[in-house]
Protein backbone atom coordinates (compact mmCIF):
# COMPACT_ATOMS: atom_id res chain seq x y z
CA UNK A 1 0.00 0.00 0.00
CA UNK A 2 2.94 2.36 0.59
CA UNK A 3 5.63 3.24 -1.96
CA UNK A 4 9.23 2.21 -1.37
CA UNK A 5 10.09 5.81 -0.64
CA UNK A 6 7.42 6.04 2.06
CA UNK A 7 8.69 2.84 3.64
CA UNK A 8 12.27 4.17 3.47
CA UNK A 9 11.33 7.35 5.33
CA UNK A 10 9.15 5.37 7.74
CA UNK A 11 11.86 2.88 8.64
CA UNK A 12 14.78 5.35 8.54
CA UNK A 13 13.20 8.66 9.40
CA UNK A 14 15.47 11.69 8.87
CA UNK A 15 15.88 14.39 11.50
CA UNK A 16 13.93 12.82 14.34
CA UNK A 17 14.09 14.57 17.67
CA UNK A 18 13.89 17.98 19.25
CA UNK A 19 16.03 21.13 18.96
CA UNK A 20 16.69 22.45 22.46
CA UNK A 21 17.20 26.05 21.32
CA UNK A 22 14.61 26.00 18.53
CA UNK A 23 13.31 29.43 17.59
CA UNK A 24 10.19 28.12 15.86
CA UNK A 25 7.95 25.22 16.88
CA UNK A 26 4.74 24.12 15.15
CA UNK A 27 2.25 21.39 15.91
CA UNK A 28 -0.80 20.09 14.04
CA UNK A 29 -3.28 17.25 14.51
CA UNK A 30 -4.36 15.75 17.81
CA UNK A 31 -4.13 12.42 19.56
CA UNK A 32 -7.84 11.78 19.16
CA UNK A 33 -7.42 11.63 15.39
CA UNK A 34 -4.36 9.47 15.73
CA UNK A 35 -1.87 11.97 14.30
CA UNK A 36 0.24 14.65 15.95
CA UNK A 37 3.18 16.25 14.17
CA UNK A 38 5.54 18.67 15.84
CA UNK A 39 8.27 20.48 13.91
CA UNK A 40 11.23 22.28 15.50
CA UNK A 41 13.15 24.91 13.55
CA UNK A 42 16.44 26.66 14.05
CA UNK A 43 16.33 29.70 11.78
CA UNK A 44 19.27 32.04 11.16
CA UNK A 45 19.14 34.96 8.70
CA UNK A 46 15.83 33.64 7.35
CA UNK A 47 17.47 30.33 6.49
CA UNK A 48 16.48 27.02 8.07
CA UNK A 49 19.74 25.88 9.59
CA UNK A 50 18.26 22.90 11.37
CA UNK A 51 14.92 21.13 11.50
CA UNK A 52 13.70 18.18 13.54
CA UNK A 53 10.37 16.48 14.11
CA UNK A 54 8.44 14.34 16.54
CA UNK A 55 5.37 12.51 15.30
CA UNK A 56 2.68 10.29 16.76
CA UNK A 57 0.88 8.59 13.92
CA UNK A 58 0.70 6.04 11.17
CA UNK A 59 3.31 5.18 8.55
CA UNK A 60 2.27 8.06 6.31
CA UNK A 61 2.39 10.55 9.18
CA UNK A 62 5.95 9.56 10.06
CA UNK A 63 7.14 9.42 6.44
CA UNK A 64 5.69 12.83 5.52
CA UNK A 65 7.23 14.37 8.64
CA UNK A 66 10.60 12.95 7.72
CA UNK A 67 10.26 14.07 4.10
CA UNK A 68 9.31 17.63 4.94
CA UNK A 69 12.40 18.04 7.11
CA UNK A 70 14.56 16.82 4.26
CA UNK A 71 12.85 19.18 1.81
CA UNK A 72 13.35 22.34 3.90
CA UNK A 73 16.79 21.84 5.39
CA UNK A 74 18.91 24.82 4.31
CA UNK A 75 16.02 26.53 2.52
CA UNK A 76 14.93 30.13 3.01
CA UNK A 77 11.68 30.74 4.87
CA UNK A 78 10.01 31.91 1.66
CA UNK A 79 11.01 28.72 -0.10
CA UNK A 80 9.80 26.65 2.85
CA UNK A 81 6.43 28.40 2.89
CA UNK A 82 5.87 27.32 -0.69
CA UNK A 83 6.09 23.63 0.19
CA UNK A 84 2.59 22.15 0.30
CA UNK A 85 1.23 18.89 1.72
CA UNK A 86 0.70 17.82 -1.88
CA UNK A 87 4.38 18.45 -2.70
CA UNK A 88 5.44 16.34 0.29
CA UNK A 89 3.22 13.48 -0.86
CA UNK A 90 4.61 13.77 -4.39
CA UNK A 91 8.18 13.72 -3.11
CA UNK A 92 7.33 10.39 -1.48
CA UNK A 93 6.03 8.97 -4.76
CA UNK A 94 2.43 9.37 -3.64
CA UNK A 95 0.31 8.22 -0.71
CA UNK A 96 -2.72 5.93 -0.59
CA UNK A 97 -5.87 8.03 -1.18
CA UNK A 98 -7.17 7.45 2.36
CA UNK A 99 -3.97 8.94 3.77
CA UNK A 100 -4.00 12.11 1.71
CA UNK A 101 -6.35 14.02 3.96
CA UNK A 102 -5.71 12.63 7.43
CA UNK A 103 -2.01 11.92 7.71
CA UNK A 104 -0.53 14.35 5.21
CA UNK A 105 -0.12 17.35 7.47
CA UNK A 106 3.63 17.72 7.70
CA UNK A 107 3.77 20.90 5.58
CA UNK A 108 1.07 22.40 7.81
CA UNK A 109 3.23 21.67 10.85
CA UNK A 110 6.19 23.30 9.10
CA UNK A 111 4.15 26.40 8.27
CA UNK A 112 2.99 26.60 11.89
CA UNK A 113 6.61 26.46 13.00
CA UNK A 114 7.56 29.28 10.60
CA UNK A 115 4.61 31.32 11.83
CA UNK A 116 5.80 30.76 15.39
CA UNK A 117 9.28 31.93 14.45
CA UNK A 118 7.98 35.09 12.76
CA UNK A 119 5.73 35.90 15.71
CA UNK A 120 8.55 35.42 18.21
CA UNK A 121 10.92 37.51 16.11
CA UNK A 122 8.39 40.32 15.89
CA UNK A 123 8.24 40.66 19.66
Amino acid at each position, binding site marked *: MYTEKVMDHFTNPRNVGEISDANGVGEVGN*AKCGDIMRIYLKVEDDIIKDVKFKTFG*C*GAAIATSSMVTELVMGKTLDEALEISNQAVAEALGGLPPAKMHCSNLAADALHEAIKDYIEKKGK
Partner: protein
Amino acid sequence: MKRIYFDHSATTPVDNEVAALMMEYMTEKFGNPSSIHSFGREVKKSVDEARQQLASLLNANSNEIFFTSGGTEADNLALKGLAFANRKKGNHIITTCIEHHAILHTCDYLEKNGFTVTYLPVDENAMVRLEDVKKAITDKTILISVMFANNEVGTIQPIKEIGQLAREKGIYFHTDAVQAVGNYPIDVKEYNIDLLTLSAHKFHGPKGIGALYIRRGVRIDAVQHGGGQERSLRAGTENVPGIVGLGKAAEIAQQDMTKKIARISTLRDKLIKGLMEKVPDIKLNGHPTQRMPGSVNFSFLYVEGESLLLNLDLKGIAASSGSACTSGSLDPSHVLLAMGLTHEVAHGSLRLTLGRGNTEEDVEYCLTVLPEIVGRLRSMSPLSASSKMSDSNPCSICKH
Protein backbone atom coordinates in the same frame (compact mmCIF):
# COMPACT_ATOMS: atom_id res chain seq x y z
CA MET B 1 13.22 -14.13 7.28
CA LYS B 2 11.27 -15.81 10.04
CA ARG B 3 7.53 -15.29 9.52
CA ILE B 4 5.14 -15.56 12.43
CA TYR B 5 1.39 -15.54 12.07
CA PHE B 6 -0.36 -13.88 15.01
CA ASP B 7 -3.61 -13.04 13.25
CA HIS B 8 -5.72 -16.16 13.73
CA SER B 9 -8.83 -14.11 14.48
CA ALA B 10 -8.63 -12.81 10.91
CA THR B 11 -8.24 -16.24 9.36
CA THR B 12 -6.37 -19.53 9.81
CA PRO B 13 -4.50 -21.79 7.39
CA VAL B 14 -6.54 -24.67 6.00
CA ASP B 15 -5.56 -27.98 7.56
CA ASN B 16 -3.71 -30.21 5.06
CA GLU B 17 -6.14 -33.05 5.61
CA VAL B 18 -9.05 -30.68 4.97
CA ALA B 19 -7.46 -29.33 1.78
CA ALA B 20 -6.76 -32.84 0.45
CA LEU B 21 -10.34 -33.90 1.08
CA MET B 22 -11.71 -30.80 -0.62
CA MET B 23 -9.60 -31.46 -3.69
CA GLU B 24 -11.25 -34.84 -4.03
CA TYR B 25 -14.65 -33.12 -4.08
CA MET B 26 -13.60 -30.75 -6.83
CA THR B 27 -12.21 -33.31 -9.22
CA GLU B 28 -13.45 -36.89 -8.68
CA LYS B 29 -16.56 -36.38 -6.57
CA PHE B 30 -17.88 -33.37 -8.41
CA GLY B 31 -21.57 -34.32 -8.53
CA ASN B 32 -24.49 -32.12 -7.60
CA PRO B 33 -26.05 -33.43 -4.39
CA SER B 34 -29.51 -32.80 -5.83
CA SER B 35 -28.91 -35.24 -8.71
CA ILE B 36 -30.52 -38.66 -8.54
CA HIS B 37 -27.67 -40.54 -10.25
CA SER B 38 -24.68 -42.10 -8.51
CA PHE B 39 -22.50 -38.98 -8.94
CA GLY B 40 -25.08 -36.98 -7.04
CA ARG B 41 -25.87 -39.63 -4.46
CA GLU B 42 -22.28 -40.15 -3.32
CA VAL B 43 -21.89 -36.42 -2.81
CA LYS B 44 -25.22 -36.09 -1.02
CA LYS B 45 -24.01 -38.69 1.44
CA SER B 46 -20.81 -36.74 2.09
CA VAL B 47 -22.75 -33.52 2.65
CA ASP B 48 -24.91 -35.34 5.21
CA GLU B 49 -21.80 -36.68 6.93
CA ALA B 50 -20.31 -33.21 7.13
CA ARG B 51 -23.56 -31.96 8.62
CA GLN B 52 -23.27 -34.66 11.25
CA GLN B 53 -19.62 -33.84 11.97
CA LEU B 54 -20.49 -30.21 12.54
CA ALA B 55 -23.57 -31.06 14.61
CA SER B 56 -21.42 -33.24 16.82
CA LEU B 57 -19.04 -30.33 17.52
CA LEU B 58 -21.96 -28.26 18.82
CA ASN B 59 -23.97 -31.07 20.43
CA ALA B 60 -26.72 -30.32 17.93
CA ASN B 61 -28.72 -32.58 15.62
CA SER B 62 -27.68 -32.69 12.00
CA ASN B 63 -31.07 -31.42 10.83
CA GLU B 64 -30.44 -28.24 12.82
CA ILE B 65 -27.42 -27.29 10.67
CA PHE B 66 -27.86 -25.05 7.61
CA PHE B 67 -24.83 -24.34 5.46
CA THR B 68 -24.20 -20.78 4.26
CA SER B 69 -21.42 -18.95 2.46
CA GLY B 70 -19.89 -17.91 5.78
CA GLY B 71 -20.44 -16.00 8.99
CA THR B 72 -21.83 -12.84 7.42
CA GLU B 73 -24.52 -14.71 5.51
CA ALA B 74 -25.42 -16.78 8.57
CA ASP B 75 -25.79 -13.59 10.65
CA ASN B 76 -27.98 -12.04 7.96
CA LEU B 77 -30.12 -15.17 7.74
CA ALA B 78 -30.48 -15.43 11.51
CA LEU B 79 -31.46 -11.83 12.14
CA LYS B 80 -33.53 -11.03 9.07
CA GLY B 81 -34.98 -14.52 8.88
CA LEU B 82 -36.10 -14.52 12.49
CA ALA B 83 -37.27 -10.91 12.50
CA PHE B 84 -39.44 -11.26 9.42
CA ALA B 85 -40.87 -14.60 10.54
CA ASN B 86 -41.84 -13.17 13.94
CA ARG B 87 -42.92 -9.64 13.13
CA LYS B 88 -46.46 -10.35 14.25
CA LYS B 89 -45.16 -11.19 17.72
CA GLY B 90 -43.04 -8.08 18.07
CA ASN B 91 -40.52 -5.79 16.44
CA HIS B 92 -37.85 -5.33 19.08
CA ILE B 93 -34.34 -6.79 18.91
CA ILE B 94 -31.61 -6.60 21.54
CA THR B 95 -27.96 -6.78 20.60
CA THR B 96 -24.68 -5.21 21.78
CA CYS B 97 -22.43 -2.32 20.79
CA ILE B 98 -19.49 -4.63 20.22
CA GLU B 99 -20.91 -7.00 17.60
CA HIS B 100 -19.26 -7.62 14.26
CA HIS B 101 -20.48 -5.39 11.45
CA ALA B 102 -22.33 -8.38 9.99
CA ILE B 103 -24.71 -8.00 12.95
CA LEU B 104 -24.59 -4.23 13.37
CA HIS B 105 -25.25 -3.41 9.72
CA THR B 106 -27.98 -6.06 9.48
CA CYS B 107 -29.59 -4.36 12.49
CA ASP B 108 -29.32 -0.99 10.67
CA TYR B 109 -31.20 -2.56 7.80
CA LEU B 110 -33.88 -3.97 10.11
CA GLU B 111 -34.28 -0.58 11.77
CA LYS B 112 -35.03 0.89 8.36
CA ASN B 113 -37.66 -1.80 7.91
CA GLY B 114 -39.83 -1.27 10.94
CA PHE B 115 -37.84 -2.94 13.71
CA THR B 116 -36.35 -1.25 16.73
CA VAL B 117 -32.98 -2.32 18.07
CA THR B 118 -31.44 -1.82 21.51
CA TYR B 119 -27.64 -1.82 21.53
CA LEU B 120 -26.40 -2.89 24.94
CA PRO B 121 -23.32 -1.24 26.39
CA VAL B 122 -20.43 -3.28 27.77
CA ASP B 123 -18.19 -2.81 30.79
CA GLU B 124 -14.49 -1.89 30.63
CA ASN B 125 -13.63 -5.53 29.87
CA ALA B 126 -16.08 -5.68 26.94
CA MET B 127 -18.44 -7.83 28.99
CA VAL B 128 -22.20 -7.54 28.59
CA ARG B 129 -24.05 -7.24 31.93
CA LEU B 130 -26.94 -9.61 32.42
CA GLU B 131 -28.79 -6.84 34.26
CA ASP B 132 -28.66 -4.69 31.14
CA VAL B 133 -30.12 -7.49 29.04
CA LYS B 134 -32.95 -7.92 31.56
CA LYS B 135 -33.70 -4.21 31.59
CA ALA B 136 -33.78 -3.99 27.80
CA ILE B 137 -36.46 -6.66 27.38
CA THR B 138 -39.93 -5.38 26.46
CA ASP B 139 -43.12 -7.21 25.52
CA LYS B 140 -42.17 -6.53 21.90
CA THR B 141 -38.76 -8.24 22.13
CA ILE B 142 -38.47 -11.16 19.72
CA LEU B 143 -34.73 -11.70 19.57
CA ILE B 144 -31.58 -11.26 21.62
CA SER B 145 -28.30 -11.53 19.70
CA VAL B 146 -25.04 -11.49 21.66
CA MET B 147 -21.72 -12.62 20.24
CA PHE B 148 -20.05 -15.58 21.92
CA ALA B 149 -16.53 -14.14 21.96
CA ASN B 150 -15.42 -10.76 20.71
CA ASN B 151 -13.22 -10.77 17.63
CA GLU B 152 -11.06 -7.84 18.71
CA VAL B 153 -10.45 -8.28 22.42
CA GLY B 154 -11.46 -11.92 22.91
CA THR B 155 -13.88 -11.42 25.80
CA ILE B 156 -16.21 -14.41 26.23
CA GLN B 157 -19.75 -13.36 27.06
CA PRO B 158 -22.05 -14.92 29.68
CA ILE B 159 -23.84 -16.84 26.95
CA LYS B 160 -25.35 -19.54 29.12
CA GLU B 161 -26.95 -16.99 31.46
CA ILE B 162 -28.26 -14.81 28.64
CA GLY B 163 -29.57 -17.92 26.90
CA GLN B 164 -31.37 -19.01 30.04
CA LEU B 165 -32.90 -15.58 30.51
CA ALA B 166 -34.10 -15.51 26.90
CA ARG B 167 -35.55 -18.99 27.23
CA GLU B 168 -37.45 -18.05 30.40
CA LYS B 169 -38.89 -14.98 28.70
CA GLY B 170 -39.81 -16.83 25.53
CA ILE B 171 -37.43 -14.73 23.42
CA TYR B 172 -35.22 -16.26 20.74
CA PHE B 173 -31.48 -16.16 21.38
CA HIS B 174 -28.88 -15.94 18.64
CA THR B 175 -25.13 -15.91 19.13
CA ASP B 176 -22.49 -15.00 16.57
CA ALA B 177 -19.93 -17.62 17.54
CA VAL B 178 -17.60 -17.12 14.58
CA GLN B 179 -14.54 -16.65 16.81
CA ALA B 180 -15.44 -19.41 19.23
CA VAL B 181 -16.61 -22.41 17.22
CA GLY B 182 -13.79 -24.89 16.76
CA ASN B 183 -11.57 -22.99 19.19
CA TYR B 184 -13.65 -23.20 22.35
CA PRO B 185 -16.13 -25.83 23.56
CA ILE B 186 -19.75 -24.97 22.78
CA ASP B 187 -22.82 -26.99 23.65
CA VAL B 188 -25.92 -25.38 22.16
CA LYS B 189 -28.22 -27.31 24.49
CA GLU B 190 -26.35 -26.50 27.67
CA TYR B 191 -26.05 -22.83 26.63
CA ASN B 192 -29.75 -22.46 25.66
CA ILE B 193 -28.85 -21.25 22.17
CA ASP B 194 -31.60 -21.05 19.53
CA LEU B 195 -29.48 -19.85 16.63
CA LEU B 196 -25.71 -19.86 16.23
CA THR B 197 -23.45 -18.47 13.50
CA LEU B 198 -20.15 -20.08 12.60
CA SER B 199 -17.49 -19.82 9.93
CA ALA B 200 -15.07 -22.53 8.77
CA HIS B 201 -11.99 -20.42 8.07
CA LYS B 202 -11.61 -19.43 11.70
CA PHE B 203 -10.77 -23.00 12.65
CA HIS B 204 -8.60 -24.33 9.82
CA GLY B 205 -11.41 -24.85 7.35
CA PRO B 206 -11.81 -23.08 4.01
CA LYS B 207 -13.10 -19.58 3.35
CA GLY B 208 -16.52 -19.14 1.78
CA ILE B 209 -18.35 -21.65 3.94
CA GLY B 210 -20.13 -21.36 7.25
CA ALA B 211 -23.35 -22.43 8.85
CA LEU B 212 -26.28 -21.37 10.91
CA TYR B 213 -27.47 -23.67 13.67
CA ILE B 214 -31.24 -23.34 14.08
CA ARG B 215 -32.75 -25.21 17.00
CA ARG B 216 -35.53 -27.53 15.96
CA GLY B 217 -38.86 -25.75 16.26
CA VAL B 218 -37.49 -22.24 15.63
CA ARG B 219 -39.14 -20.81 12.53
CA ILE B 220 -37.31 -18.38 10.32
CA ASP B 221 -37.89 -16.99 6.84
CA ALA B 222 -35.43 -17.58 4.02
CA VAL B 223 -33.43 -14.59 2.82
CA GLN B 224 -32.16 -16.17 -0.39
CA HIS B 225 -34.80 -17.76 -2.61
CA GLY B 226 -34.40 -20.32 -5.35
CA GLY B 227 -34.13 -24.12 -5.31
CA GLY B 228 -35.06 -26.19 -2.30
CA GLN B 229 -31.55 -26.68 -0.90
CA GLU B 230 -30.95 -26.59 2.85
CA ARG B 231 -34.63 -27.35 3.32
CA SER B 232 -35.56 -24.20 1.42
CA LEU B 233 -33.85 -21.95 3.95
CA ARG B 234 -30.79 -21.31 1.81
CA ALA B 235 -31.30 -21.84 -1.90
CA GLY B 236 -28.38 -22.49 -4.23
CA THR B 237 -26.33 -25.52 -5.22
CA GLU B 238 -24.30 -26.61 -2.21
CA ASN B 239 -20.64 -25.62 -1.98
CA VAL B 240 -19.71 -29.28 -1.64
CA PRO B 241 -15.91 -28.92 -1.32
CA GLY B 242 -16.50 -26.23 1.29
CA ILE B 243 -19.06 -28.29 3.17
CA VAL B 244 -16.91 -31.44 3.38
CA GLY B 245 -13.97 -29.22 4.33
CA LEU B 246 -16.03 -27.63 7.09
CA GLY B 247 -17.12 -31.05 8.33
CA LYS B 248 -13.55 -32.32 8.43
CA ALA B 249 -12.31 -29.16 10.14
CA ALA B 250 -15.05 -29.60 12.77
CA GLU B 251 -14.00 -33.19 13.35
CA ILE B 252 -10.34 -32.21 13.73
CA ALA B 253 -11.21 -29.28 16.01
CA GLN B 254 -13.06 -31.61 18.33
CA GLN B 255 -10.06 -33.90 18.77
CA ASP B 256 -8.09 -33.01 21.92
CA MET B 257 -9.75 -29.61 22.12
CA THR B 258 -9.04 -29.29 25.83
CA LYS B 259 -5.33 -29.99 25.28
CA LYS B 260 -5.12 -27.51 22.40
CA ILE B 261 -6.84 -24.82 24.44
CA ALA B 262 -4.47 -25.41 27.35
CA ARG B 263 -1.41 -25.15 25.10
CA ILE B 264 -2.55 -21.98 23.31
CA SER B 265 -3.69 -20.32 26.56
CA THR B 266 -0.27 -20.95 28.05
CA LEU B 267 1.38 -19.22 25.09
CA ARG B 268 -1.13 -16.36 25.33
CA ASP B 269 -0.43 -15.85 29.03
CA LYS B 270 3.31 -15.95 28.46
CA LEU B 271 2.97 -13.24 25.81
CA ILE B 272 0.72 -11.10 28.01
CA LYS B 273 2.96 -11.44 31.04
CA GLY B 274 6.12 -10.84 29.02
CA LEU B 275 4.81 -7.68 27.41
CA MET B 276 3.56 -6.30 30.71
CA GLU B 277 6.99 -6.87 32.22
CA LYS B 278 8.95 -5.45 29.31
CA VAL B 279 6.89 -2.49 28.14
CA PRO B 280 5.77 0.34 30.43
CA ASP B 281 2.53 2.26 29.85
CA ILE B 282 0.49 -0.49 28.23
CA LYS B 283 -3.05 -1.59 28.86
CA LEU B 284 -4.46 -5.07 28.36
CA ASN B 285 -7.75 -4.83 26.47
CA GLY B 286 -10.47 -7.40 27.12
CA HIS B 287 -11.33 -9.50 30.13
CA PRO B 288 -8.30 -10.65 32.15
CA THR B 289 -9.50 -14.26 32.40
CA GLN B 290 -12.73 -14.73 30.42
CA ARG B 291 -11.00 -14.42 27.07
CA MET B 292 -10.40 -16.60 24.03
CA PRO B 293 -7.41 -18.94 24.38
CA GLY B 294 -5.41 -17.21 21.64
CA SER B 295 -6.45 -13.62 22.15
CA VAL B 296 -4.02 -10.87 23.15
CA ASN B 297 -4.89 -7.19 22.77
CA PHE B 298 -2.91 -4.30 24.19
CA SER B 299 -2.97 -0.55 23.87
CA PHE B 300 0.52 0.91 23.73
CA LEU B 301 0.22 4.47 24.92
CA TYR B 302 1.85 7.29 22.89
CA VAL B 303 2.19 5.22 19.70
CA GLU B 304 -0.17 4.49 16.85
CA GLY B 305 -1.33 1.05 15.78
CA GLU B 306 -0.53 1.13 12.09
CA SER B 307 3.07 2.11 12.81
CA LEU B 308 3.30 -0.86 15.14
CA LEU B 309 1.84 -3.19 12.51
CA LEU B 310 4.18 -2.00 9.76
CA ASN B 311 7.20 -2.41 11.98
CA LEU B 312 6.10 -5.86 13.14
CA ASP B 313 5.49 -6.88 9.53
CA LEU B 314 9.03 -5.79 8.64
CA LYS B 315 10.17 -8.20 11.36
CA GLY B 316 7.98 -10.97 9.97
CA ILE B 317 5.18 -10.80 12.53
CA ALA B 318 1.60 -10.56 11.26
CA ALA B 319 -0.84 -8.81 13.61
CA SER B 320 -3.73 -6.36 13.45
CA SER B 321 -4.90 -3.17 15.11
CA GLY B 322 -8.04 -1.28 16.00
CA SER B 323 -6.61 2.10 15.04
CA ALA B 324 -8.48 4.33 12.63
CA CYS B 325 -5.78 3.90 10.01
CA THR B 326 -6.41 0.20 9.86
CA SER B 327 -10.18 0.32 10.25
CA GLY B 328 -10.57 2.32 7.06
CA SER B 329 -12.46 5.10 8.80
CA LEU B 330 -11.55 8.17 10.81
CA ASP B 331 -12.52 6.47 14.04
CA PRO B 332 -10.77 3.67 15.82
CA SER B 333 -12.49 0.38 16.62
CA HIS B 334 -16.10 0.62 17.84
CA VAL B 335 -15.35 -2.20 20.28
CA LEU B 336 -12.51 -0.35 22.01
CA LEU B 337 -14.56 2.86 22.18
CA ALA B 338 -17.55 0.94 23.62
CA MET B 339 -15.22 -0.35 26.37
CA GLY B 340 -14.56 3.26 27.32
CA LEU B 341 -11.11 3.66 25.81
CA THR B 342 -10.33 7.17 24.66
CA HIS B 343 -9.62 7.65 20.96
CA GLU B 344 -5.92 8.13 21.59
CA VAL B 345 -5.60 4.91 23.58
CA ALA B 346 -7.66 3.00 21.03
CA HIS B 347 -5.37 4.26 18.23
CA GLY B 348 -2.48 2.50 19.93
CA SER B 349 -4.12 -0.91 20.06
CA LEU B 350 -2.50 -4.06 18.79
CA ARG B 351 -4.20 -7.44 18.43
CA LEU B 352 -2.09 -10.58 18.45
CA THR B 353 -4.15 -13.76 18.03
CA LEU B 354 -2.41 -17.07 18.51
CA GLY B 355 -3.31 -20.38 16.98
CA ARG B 356 -2.34 -23.99 16.91
CA GLY B 357 0.68 -23.42 14.63
CA ASN B 358 2.37 -21.05 17.08
CA THR B 359 5.22 -22.07 19.34
CA GLU B 360 7.00 -20.83 22.39
CA GLU B 361 9.81 -19.56 20.15
CA ASP B 362 7.27 -17.39 18.31
CA VAL B 363 6.24 -15.80 21.58
CA GLU B 364 9.84 -15.29 22.63
CA TYR B 365 10.71 -13.70 19.29
CA CYS B 366 7.77 -11.33 19.64
CA LEU B 367 8.85 -10.46 23.16
CA THR B 368 12.28 -9.50 21.80
CA VAL B 369 11.08 -7.54 18.79
CA LEU B 370 7.96 -5.73 19.99
CA PRO B 371 9.41 -3.85 23.01
CA GLU B 372 12.17 -2.51 20.72
CA ILE B 373 9.62 -1.29 18.17
CA VAL B 374 7.50 0.39 20.83
CA GLY B 375 10.59 2.03 22.29
CA ARG B 376 11.69 3.36 18.92
CA LEU B 377 8.23 4.73 18.05
CA ARG B 378 7.94 6.32 21.47
CA SER B 379 11.28 8.04 21.00
CA MET B 380 9.79 9.66 17.88
CA SER B 381 6.49 10.52 19.54
CA PRO B 382 5.68 13.98 20.88
CA LEU B 383 3.48 12.23 23.47
CA SER B 384 4.75 10.80 26.73
CA ALA B 385 3.65 10.17 30.27
CA SER B 386 4.34 13.81 31.10
CA SER B 387 2.57 15.24 28.05
CA LYS B 388 -1.12 15.78 28.17
CA MET B 389 -2.97 13.35 25.90
CA SER B 390 -5.78 15.75 25.25
CA ASP B 391 -7.64 17.50 22.52
CA SER B 392 -6.11 20.92 22.93
CA ASN B 393 -6.00 21.54 19.18
CA PRO B 394 -9.21 20.39 17.59
CA CYS B 395 -8.40 18.57 14.38
CA SER B 396 -9.24 20.61 11.32
CA ILE B 397 -9.99 17.50 9.28
CA CYS B 398 -12.25 15.26 11.31
CA LYS B 399 -13.47 17.86 13.82
CA HIS B 400 -12.54 15.75 16.80
